[in-house]
């Protein structure tokens, strides 16, 4: 990006520094915010046990391998003849029954890595597993389609690899007011006020200045936009639900953001899995149901797609501590009203033909990313993923 592009595209042009005011309304230029497509990515950190989330309740192998932690048939929330949901997911089942959910089974990648951090690295960077990629798949989306950090927001204090691009990265915040406060020092304003466009060059100092300016104006833009919307919708009293509410406030206020990212942690259930996982799935399910209803009430749900993943599933056979160890392929959820194929997308897990006790993957997670990028975000997945993947057309 050369300097002129930068000035035109960046939020520098939001105009409170020294850029002519005719460039000011950039944030609303070109795109009709009400028709803007949003993607919300939800990460289950720690490796969620897919088999106790979407349960193969008619499969004898499941009960044979999970004598202690298998979910009883009569407790399962039935989806079809083979699969049903964890009893903690009643609210989610409600969304499913309305046709808002697609469940993808057996999603993974070749030569799966069972280390949390490496596997998360692979999912976030969309690498083949052989390569070490220092940008995230959504970061590369920002690089190719976006101009300002606020176009990718993570509800967290640190920014995940997923949202880091080469030229443009997203912005991490749990609280728009606090983010704004952090950038709002009068001293920083006096420093940036003396800047001249030619100082925003490709050198490292120029890069620091550019990041400083775009962060400052993104923070201001996020803060002032979200302030216009008072969110009175009721959410469950959990940290996760609070984070989802922050996202809905951003969306409902008309923020021109494409991608939101949020994590729910502690799925690493080696010991005493049943209660721990149910508690987390309940937080997820009730939080998501509230989010969907909130967005629906504001006519934003039709423009929103929610994707949920974890870095791996867990071993089919339970361990001796009432838990499960690190596994491989698992399920993903796609939630939205614009699904082309809702319900259960593909075959239930095969619990007989395992590799080292783990499920084989049938869908590469990058096919899911490619489908979302091409069909929903209208981007070119081959550029972003650096490879062509078969489109699954679920949306």
């Amino acid at each position, binding site marked *: 990006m050369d300097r002129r592009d930068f000035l035109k595209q960046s939020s520098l042009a939001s105009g409170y520094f020294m850029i002519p005011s005719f460039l000011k309304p950039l944030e609303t230029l070109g795109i009709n915010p009400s028709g803007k497509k949003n993607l919300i990515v939800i990460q289950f950190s720690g490796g969620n046990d897919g088999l106790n989330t979407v349960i193969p309740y008619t499969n004898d192998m499941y009960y044979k391998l999970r004598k202690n932690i298998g979910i009883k048939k009569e407790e399962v929330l039935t989806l079809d003849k083979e699969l049903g949901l964890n009893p903690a997911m009643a609210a989610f089942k409600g969304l499913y029954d309305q046709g808002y959910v697609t469940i993808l089974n057996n999603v993974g990648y070749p030569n799966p890595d069972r280390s949390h951090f490496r596997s998360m690295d692979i999912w976030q960077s969309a690498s083949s597993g052989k390569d070490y990629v*220092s940008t995230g798949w959504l970061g590369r989306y920002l690089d190719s389609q976006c101009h300002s950090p606020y176009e990718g927001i993570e509800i967290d204090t640190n920014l995940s690899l997923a949202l880091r691009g080469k030229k443009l990265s997203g912005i991490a915040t749990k609280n728009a007011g606090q983010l704004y406060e952090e950038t709002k020092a009068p001293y920083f304003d006096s420093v940036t006020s003396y800047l001249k466009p030619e100082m925003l060059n490709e050198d490292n100092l120029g890069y620091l200045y550019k990041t400083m300016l775009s962060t400052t104006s993104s923070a201001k833009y996020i803060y002032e936009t979200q302030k216009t919307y008072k969110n009175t919708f009721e959410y469950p009293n959990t940290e996760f639900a609070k984070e989802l509410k922050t996202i809905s406030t951003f969306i409902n206020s008309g923020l021109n953001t494409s991608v939101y990212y949020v994590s729910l942690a502690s799925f690493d259930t080696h010991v005493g899995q049943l209660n721990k996982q149910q508690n987390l799935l309940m937080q997820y399910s009730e939080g998501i149901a509230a989010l969907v209803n909130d967005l629906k009430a504001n006519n934003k749900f039709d423009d929103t797609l929610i994707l949920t993943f974890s870095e791996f599933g867990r071993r089919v056979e339970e361990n001796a501590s009432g838990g499960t160890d690190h596994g491989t392929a698992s399920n993903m959820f796609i939630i939205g009203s614009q699904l082309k194929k809702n319900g259960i997308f593909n075959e239930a897990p095969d619990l007989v033909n395992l590799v080292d006790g783990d499920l084989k993957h049938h869908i590469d997670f990058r096919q899911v990313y490619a489908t979302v990028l091409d069909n929903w975000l209208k981007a070119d997945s081959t550029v972003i993923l650096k490879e062509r993947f078969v489109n699954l057309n679920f949306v």
Partner: protein
Amino acid sequence: MATPVQYILHLYKRFGFGISLEEAKLLKSKKLGEIVNELFNASIVSTGLVSVAIDSIPKAKDAMTEGMNKKDLNKMITTYSESLNTDWIKQLVNTKAVVREKQTLFWHNHFACRLRNPYLVQELNNIHRKFAFANFRELLFNVSKSAAMLQFLNNQQNKKMHPNENFARELMELFTLGRGNYTEQDVKESARAFTGWSFNKDTFEYEFKEKQHDFDKKTFLGREGNFAGEDIINIIMDQRLTAYFLCKKMYAYYVNDVVDEKRVKELADFYYMNAYDTDKLLRKIALSDWFYAPQNVGNKIKAPIDFLVTLNRQFNIEYESNSTLIIIQRSLGQLLFYPPNVAGWPGGKSWINSSTLMLRLRLPSMLLNSGVIDMEAEDDDPDDGIMAMTKSAYKNYKTQVNWEKIISEYKNAELNDVASVLLGSELETNLKSVIQTNTGSTKELILKLISLPHYQLY
């Protein structure tokens, strides 16, 4: 012949963590060669880290029989991992052997390794330090035979009947030749040569398991023989490309992110001809006139560790809690002993994004003014030791700073001098007036300078 103060400042910033104006002025009557010698000679001693003893952490099954549950064990591992991390930070802040530590940081990133057991990564770190200036072959042998690397790259699972290629692949891709300079077949063949490389689970000493080793013929990089792992490493060291790969990375680390191919080739020839003598290579860089050329001065973005260590050396910050050091590293994206993957931290511009930059700009004033930041630690997965620290524990940053001492050091100095000690790049004229406007005290001037983007450079 005297040496310009600017040279001394640059040398100490890049091969150490900075120098005070006073000390720099004391050195300027000496020749550059003498100054470089003194700096390197201060690093002859190698002081290893001893935060974790070999038996500090019980094996999981022993812990269970001793009545520890998994949670207690995780907590114990977290505590040791945290001590290891902050002990190193303190060593970086206090040591006189700065070049050795700087090069240890380089190897820490080059041979990136992340394991649950802090003893193993501590021992690997001590190898990096001990052989920091040795010839690279010796370092590579020691790293390759360390329990940490054997475990991290799955060589324990590399057996004659089921070769595991992980170590062989990373050895070539990340440690020596670089991508594109070997074939998939080379990976397969060399993996066979490393079968049986293992370590003793009690002593963590290297062990060769003859029964697991594939003694048959291998073809590797065009040569044929019944190669063992040692032969493979020797063949790799015979390749000039290995010297090139390493010199390119060290040039980016010490000189400039934007690599000058001509210089790198010169350095690579020198390194190769001198049997990979790292000490000679680094001295050569420090003595080259191009190292001091304007385009190579003040243009590198500090890695978070450089940022943190430099700040601490400049202002002698005392922390009420060690966990503040951990949270800063995490938030800035470089927690020692926790590289993102085996390729290490990508560095350069990737340190900077909207979330890290504002914190980096704010942090100096926060730490020096006992500021409080509401920064929650992430609740990451519990297998990753200190990555799993609880959220609520680290909301406050509490520090103590002796401002009187700092002020007396700077109060009579010219703005330009203060700026050239503290900042990377030079101050633009307009900016100088912005800073001097309404700045009453030396303290305020210093705070303003170190809150500039220029402070992120060195």
